[in-house]
């Protein structure tokens, strides 16, 4: 008993300290901050107010929230539209080819995400590669604005987040038993029925998983909006960043963060209700 409790202590005390000090406490602290008042110089006046939460519903901020949510939803849909057929086509290849192709999906994402974003800037800007190619082919007279607008932000977000959709969707597609598909064919199902009745239901958890992994970061990736949106497009991430580093209104920034946490928890609840496994969110 004594020995057992000693080893229990060694295994578990680091993680318990970690979970309390670096997860629970910081979140409780920003929850506390979100009820305080800012003195506009980065200081905090201790109070108990709901003003920061009411401020979120100010039309100026609601617009940012609405636009950021739209951008994240559209990004998620584009990722599904690319990742889903891509995963199905790949799963039809030989096992070894599949392994190589999936590794090839991973490689770009082992390099720095800012560097890759910069790669897009080189391609997309006014004097960039795309425009100079189009111009030398005499297809355009004036350069096209590929970036510093919504298009640039979408390209950046879809590019950065696509593998987070491909991996879970591919893993659910590749788990489909080929025999079930054959059985469906033998029973006279056409391709449409086969897709709706067999493939889609079995891959829905993968799609949900991928959507969560794309949607949540897409709200927060302020550096993509900064670099490819040219500062004109504000994501919720930019709003929080500005409250903490520019306007120095930490309580308001904290309130928006708590708001995001609540939204995340609601989405995760839905994911779990639909049969999603929590460990799948962190395993790649």
């Amino acid at each position, binding site marked *: 008993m004594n*020995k057992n409790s000693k080893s*229990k202590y060694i*295994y*578990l005390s*680091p*993680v*318990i300290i*970690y*979970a309390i000090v*670096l*997860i629970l*406490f*910081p979140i409780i*602290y*920003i929850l506390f*901050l979100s009820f305080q008042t800012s003195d506009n110089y980065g200081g905090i006046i201790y109070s108990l107010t709901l003003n920061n939460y009411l401020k979120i519903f100010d039309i100026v901020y609601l617009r940012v929230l609405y636009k950021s949510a739209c951008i994240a939803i559209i990004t998620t849909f584009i990722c599904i539209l690319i990742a889903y057929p*891509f995963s199905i*086509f790949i799963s*039809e290849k030989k096992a070894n080819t599949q392994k190589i*192709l999936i*590794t*090839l*999906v991973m*490689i770009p*994402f*082992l*390099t*720095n*995400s*800012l*560097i890759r*974003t*910069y*790669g897009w*800037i*080189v*391609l997309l800007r006014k004097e960039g590669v795309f425009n*100079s190619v189009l111009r030398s082919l005499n297809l355009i007279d004036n350069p096209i604005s590929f970036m510093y607008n919504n298009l640039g932000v979408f390209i950046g977000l879809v*590019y950065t987040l*696509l593998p987070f959709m491909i991996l879970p969707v591919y893993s659910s597609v590749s788990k489909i038993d080929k025999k079930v598909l054959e059985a469906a064919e033998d029973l006279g199902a056409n391709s449409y029925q086969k897709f709706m009745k067999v493939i889609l239901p079995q891959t829905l958890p993968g799609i949900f998983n991928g959507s*969560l992994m794309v949607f*949540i*970061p897409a709200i*927060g*990736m*302020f*550096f993509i909006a900064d*670099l490819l949106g040219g500062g004109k497009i504000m994501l919720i*991430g930019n709003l*929080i*960043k500005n409250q*903490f580093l520019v306007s120095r209104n*930490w309580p308001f920034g904290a309130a928006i*963060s708590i708001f995001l946490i609540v939204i*995340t928890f609601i989405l*995760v609840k839905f994911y779990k209700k639909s049969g999603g496994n929590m460990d799948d*969110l*962190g*395993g*790649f």
Partner: protein
Amino acid sequence: MQRHKHLKNIFILIVFLFLYLPIITLIIFSFNTSSLNIVFEGFTLDWYTKLFSNSALLEALLNTIIVSVVSTGVSTIIGSLAAIGLYKFNFWGKELINKLLYIPVVIPEIVLGISLLSVYTLLKLDLGMGTLIISHIAFSIPFVIISVRTVLNSTNFQIEEAAHDLGANELKTFFYVIIPEIMPGIISGATLAFTLSLDDVIISYFTAGPGSNTLPLQIYSMIKTGITPDVNALTTLMIVVIMIVLMISSLIQIRKIKKEAM
């Protein structure tokens, strides 16, 4: 049917083109004589030599490596112990700890970043390498736990009991039975932690201080002021290293499979 297959292959090819286009562009421009990353004017290796005299970039690279190695080491040890502990033991509050561990995985990174920044400010900790390493440990541990737990769930723990019955003590069982058994999970968890740490922009942005610029942060400020092709050269070198590591690991895998088949 044949035409169908071609269309599918073309689709796969286009997706890969999309994934690789920015990287290939940067690699090509790393050999360009012009410093503007606009048109290719001629071939040179100058940027590769210039890279080694760009002290800001090299310092950022060194910081990144220190932060990634230290945070991966610490989070792999804590995470592996935690995964075993949470698997083996029941205790009061286990449910809460398990729930807390998912928070860094699911909440937007920026929320974790600002909440850690707030706590460091509250505790009057100076932002720097210390806070940066603590923050990276904070977001890595849950990923290690999940990786190790996945392996544990498919492991037969009667081996451990057998080791005990045969007289192995706790320490021996741990090093000769448990660790080898869960090694694949530890390795994939550590790899994941290392990759996440190496690439992290958002959390580092809030928790780094003067003198602890990491490579992503350095590149972020360079993109705003103007990037020189020595950054392209560094990227190219990093990609080469990653490719070599991947090739070696897949060669090892193939040899292992062949050995097992024999």
